[in-house]
């Protein structure tokens, strides 16, 4: 067991491109830390620097109370689960799990005891004599975890361990990993590009973009107080809606009409001209199903619904809108950063399952404006952020994307 302290870590490749740029993350002892971001954000590189498979250009990596920058992977006493499992195909499941113990020259009685304990935890008992080639994806995944938990490692490192599984198995393994981590209470760093895994598993989540740490906070803080446009767009599914907005006093002009926002938010956003408003789909509701008492905390507007997806407990309604070019450009850039396709601008709103709004209707939509965020379109900074509940946000000047 040990804390991992990542101090100003930089990874530059030979061509000078910084894959990881001045990232500092402190992982407390026993904490479940998630590194998340779209592909190419440097999260896997960072993990490989922790475990020692990648050299560190500058900065300090501290595990426990040792600086491990120059230690070989085997001297760091960490256990890692690889994305493609990396099981030893010539060894049986038993021998795969026993491999690290045998390397550490444990006597056979200890090896047997520990392997049996690990296989019991992971329900691999009946597969111990089989070779990895004869196992299913989920079983291989469990063997890879067995190989990690059998040692008394200082920390677990996971590199996108679930990305090769189908959706159902992924859900099961996700809760399995969470259960195991709580049970063993071991420091864990987990890399994923899937924001659902990040939200459900992590004690804290570090969001990275192009090698730069954007925000380090609990899932709840990330969700309700994203530091910038990128984090706001990355966390949450369906993603946050971004609309062009003009603030005048406490009223905000959106493409569908003007809504009122709380005075403190209006004050922070004053004097910025054209802004981007970020509103999560569930902050909207069909006005006809909202209770009167609640209605007063928001505003309503009328809009024509293009498509409705009814899912039983809830429904998603899609409302297209036009965005001015300066906002359009910023939103397209954001879409690229998020690995997404640049679709046309539309509002996605989540309605109660009992709502009777159908495609083509002009519906009256209620919006909870206390949950609205306002972003500066040029920097992406969240102007209405509540810094006390936002974890650590990298200042705009440093988190700005580097072109080229």
């Amino acid at each position, binding site marked *: 067991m040990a804390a991992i302290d990542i101090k100003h870590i930089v990874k530059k490749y030979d061509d000078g491109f910084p894959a990881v740029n001045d990232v500092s993350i402190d992982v407390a002892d026993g904490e479940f830390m998630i590194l998340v971001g779209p592909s190419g954000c440097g999260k896997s590189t960072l993990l490989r620097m922790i475990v020692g*498979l990648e050299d560190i250009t500058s900065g300090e990596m501290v595990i426990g109370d040792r600086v491990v920058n120059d230690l070989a*992977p*085997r001297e760091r006493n960490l256990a890692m689960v690889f994305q*493609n499992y990396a*099981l030893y*195909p010539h060894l049986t499941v038993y021998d795969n799990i026993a*491999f690290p113990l045998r390397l550490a020259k444990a006597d056979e009685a200890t090896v047997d005891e520990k392997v049996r304990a690990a296989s019991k935890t992971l329900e691999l008992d009946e597969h111990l004599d089989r070779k990895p080639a004869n196992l299913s994806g989920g079983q291989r995944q469990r063997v890879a975890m067995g190989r990690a938990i059998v040692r008394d490692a200082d920390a677990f490192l996971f590199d996108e361990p679930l990305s090769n599984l189908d959706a159902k198995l992924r859900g099961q393994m996700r809760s399995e990993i969470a259960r195991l981590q709580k049970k063993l209470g071991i420091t864990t760093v987990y890399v994923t590009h899937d924001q659902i895994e990040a939200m459900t598993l992590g004690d804290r989540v570090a969001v990275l973009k192009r090698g730069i740490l954007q925000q380090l906070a609990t899932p709840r803080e990330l969700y309700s107080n994203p530091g910038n446009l990128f984090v706001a767009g990355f966390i949450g599914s369906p993603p946050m809606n971004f609309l062009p907005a003009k603030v005048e006093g406490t009223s905000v002009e959106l493409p569908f009409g003007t809504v009122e926002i709380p005075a403190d938010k209006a004050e922070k956003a004053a004097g910025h001209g054209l802004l981007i408003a970020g509103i999560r789909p569930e902050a909207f509701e069909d006005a006809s199903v909202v209770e009167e008492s609640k209605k007063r905390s928001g505003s309503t507007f009328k809009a024509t619904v293009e498509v409705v997806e009814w899912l039983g407990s809830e429904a998603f309604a899609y409302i297209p809108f036009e965005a001015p070019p300066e906002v359009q450009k910023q939103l397209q850039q954001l879409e690229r950063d998020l690995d997404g396709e640049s679709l046309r601008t539309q509002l996605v709103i989540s309605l109660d399952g009992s709502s009777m709004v159908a495609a083509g209707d002009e519906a009256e939509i209620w919006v909870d404006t206390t949950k609205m965020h306002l972003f500066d379109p040029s920097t992406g900074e969240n102007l209405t952020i509540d810094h006390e509940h936002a974890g650590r946000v990298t200042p705009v000047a440093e988190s700005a994307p580097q072109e080229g």
Partner: protein
Amino acid sequence: MRNKVGIFIGCVLILLWCLLPVAWIISLSFKSQAAITNGSPGFFPASGDGAGWSNYSDVLANDQFRRAILNSIGISLIATVLSVIIATLAAYAIARLEFKGKKFVLTMALAIAMFPVVSLVGPLFDMWRTIGLYDTWPGLIIPYMSFTLPLAIWTLSAFFREIPWELEQAAQVDGATSWQAFRRVIVPLAAPGVFTAAILTFFFAWNDFVFGISLTSTESARPIPAALTFFVGADPFNRPASLLAAGAVVSTIPIIFIVLIFQRKIVAGLTSGAVKG
């Protein structure tokens, strides 16, 4: 159905084409010397012409021949083992490391493999006599290695490239040194490649004639293919053809044996299951 018949006929034709000379040698080896001198055209020995196993017992009783067999087995095995060990290490370095002149090494290796053997015999003969390697085991082992290494390196580096690098990294994270990761994870997975390289090397060493006849002068290092040519018997104008045939058959047996052992190890798809495909 018609397709199957076609394949069957094709196989039989190819087998006949390949195995007829072998069958003929075996047939000769069971005929008596007198029968061959008189001309005995049948495939099976005519009555009274059969020699039974006597040719074989004569060959095996011959000191020169026994010594040659020993030379061949010893020289070929040592050349194979050394060549495979060096090739494994070299191929691993070529597959996994980036270093200056990697391309040069690979191209040179290929160039050496294409070099005509016979053109080296003269210089080697002179060199070996000067440094005292002439007519010794090392005198043959060294040229065999230099001609089989390139092919072995190429074969093995192709195998190493197929092995996912994560396996080695996983081993290192699990607490292995680079050498342990190589020996306990990479080598077992490259086994099919190692055995392929071993068979090729053994073939080359066992079948070589040019080096065997030119770089030896006595029984102390002369391998079988060369020794058979010295198997002239009492009368130089009447060579013991049936004895030679028996000798040829005996000298093929080790190679069949080795191939049968090694090919069991060449199992395809050994790495399946290592990583999610």
